[in-house]
């Protein structure tokens, strides 16, 4: 099988292979309220990622023994369609998606007021229909909007993006080839307003200074993502008003 190869250089004349600057994010389209059955939903296209997030709840918990007396439980299922990646993947959860589901849930939970819905569950389903790099960040970003769309009480939105290193330079929002062959990848989720991190993972190599630079870039990236999220929700409500 033909395999994509590592390019000789990732940054040429200050521009990345897809023409972006180092601190530039890929094009993003986001739409809330796209599904009929779910209580809230959001479709996102971020680069070549195509992802749907949907929310059900608050609703009764099954099986019952998972209920908690003083709060709702949050469940988060990150799943990839079998055709979402180059080589068909077997349907169902694998180790990677189980870890992503866990850290994504922990990235979202801090902003939810779960104590308002004892004994119930809030279920977030993130379906990656096509995967470019950065699916967990895109999924968290969309899930956050879908929760707002479902009217779940939240203290804030969570915004997420990935930063990384290619050709020894820190760059924002890795694309697929940068992710596969770059030197480091660090997905970050934040509450932009408070400057608090709710997801932080890293692999590859960063010096401490690179990490600090990357974190700074992530902050600015999340801030842009936050604006897009807000605009998306506003246009949803505008549309509701005009209907």
């Amino acid at each position: 099988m033909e395999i994509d190869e590592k390019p000789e250089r990732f940054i040429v004349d200050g521009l990345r292979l897809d023409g972006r600057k180092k601190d530039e994010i890929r094009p993003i389209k986001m739409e809330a309220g796209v599904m009929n059955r779910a209580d809230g939903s959001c479709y996102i296209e971020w680069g070549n990622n195509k992802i749907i997030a949907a929310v059900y709840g608050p609703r009764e918990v099954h099986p019952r023994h998972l209920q908690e007396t003083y709060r709702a439980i949050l469940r988060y299922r990150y799943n990839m369609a079998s055709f979402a990646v180059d080589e068909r993947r077997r349907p169902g959860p694998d180790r990677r998606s189980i870890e992503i589901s866990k850290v994504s849930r922990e990235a979202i939970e801090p902003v939810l007021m779960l104590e308002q819905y004892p004994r119930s569950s809030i279920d977030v389903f993130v379906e990656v229909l096509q995967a470019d790099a950065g699916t967990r960040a895109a999924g968290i970003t969309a899930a956050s909007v879908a929760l707002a769309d479902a009217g779940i009480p939240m203290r804030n939105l969570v915004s997420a993006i990935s930063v990384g290193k290619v050709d020894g330079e820190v760059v924002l929002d890795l694309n697929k080839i940068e992710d596969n062959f770059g030197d480091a990848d660090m997905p970050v989720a934040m509450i932009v307003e408070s400057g608090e991190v709710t997801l932080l993972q890293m692999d590859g190599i960063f010096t401490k200074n690179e990490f600090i630079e990357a974190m700074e870039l992530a902050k600015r990236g999340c801030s842009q993502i936050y604006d897009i999220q807000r605009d998306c929700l506003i246009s949803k409500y505008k549309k509701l008003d005009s209907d």
Partner: protein
Amino acid sequence: MSSEDILSEIRRDYIYRLVRNGERIDGRKFDEYREINIEIGPIERAEGSARVKLGTTDVLAGVKMQIGEPFPDTPDQGVIITNAELIPLASPTFEPGPPDENAIELARIVDRGIRSSNAIDLDKLCIDPGKEVWMVFIDLHILDHNGNLVDASSLAAIAALFNTKIPNTKFGIDKDDERLAINDIPIATTSTEIDNNFIFDPCLDEENAANVALTVIITSKGELCGMQKSGIGRIPVETLPNIIDSSINMGEKIRKILLKALENNITV
């Protein structure tokens, strides 16, 4: 009886009363489909894909191809594997986990139409007889379940196959990528019995109100290439010819909609 059960009982009665008067909850005729929306090729990374909406029912079909071994009893034929995922995003009644009997039945009905109609020429998918053949994975990802998954999924599957390119270059085969050859366009048409009437393309409420559904799959020539009765109801033998006439009729119409969508896609 829970309040939800009572509500659904009331809903059921309402649907029956309407049908007795020749009407349906969304104003359609008994053999009328909801608006059909076909998007060709939304998933560029798949070898082929299509997304079909029947009203708000929403199904995404993706086709991936790999090289594998043929079955020992058909050494010179490619292999089709059809799989359906009723992901919990699509309905509050779907649960995570391996496919249940409903998902398996759905995948097998879709598969049956494609296989029986010889829509894919399996002989052309042989690379090295007995050793290497193309495996065609048809994956059905149900996104929004508002009734009649069978027809939506069958349509998405055949549309995605039309859109499929054999990835020769990706697998190091010394040929350009080429379109998968499609020989037939099987169309599944499902109707559901309410008060002795068979109404087509049931929405979810109609599906829940009825006891039995019948799927008839129709080839381009107007033949039957698959049937499935589903549900605990009974079907009087004498009603079958009429249902089949309607199915042949509906199949023809839906096939035209698909062909138009494919045409528009190619010209774009």
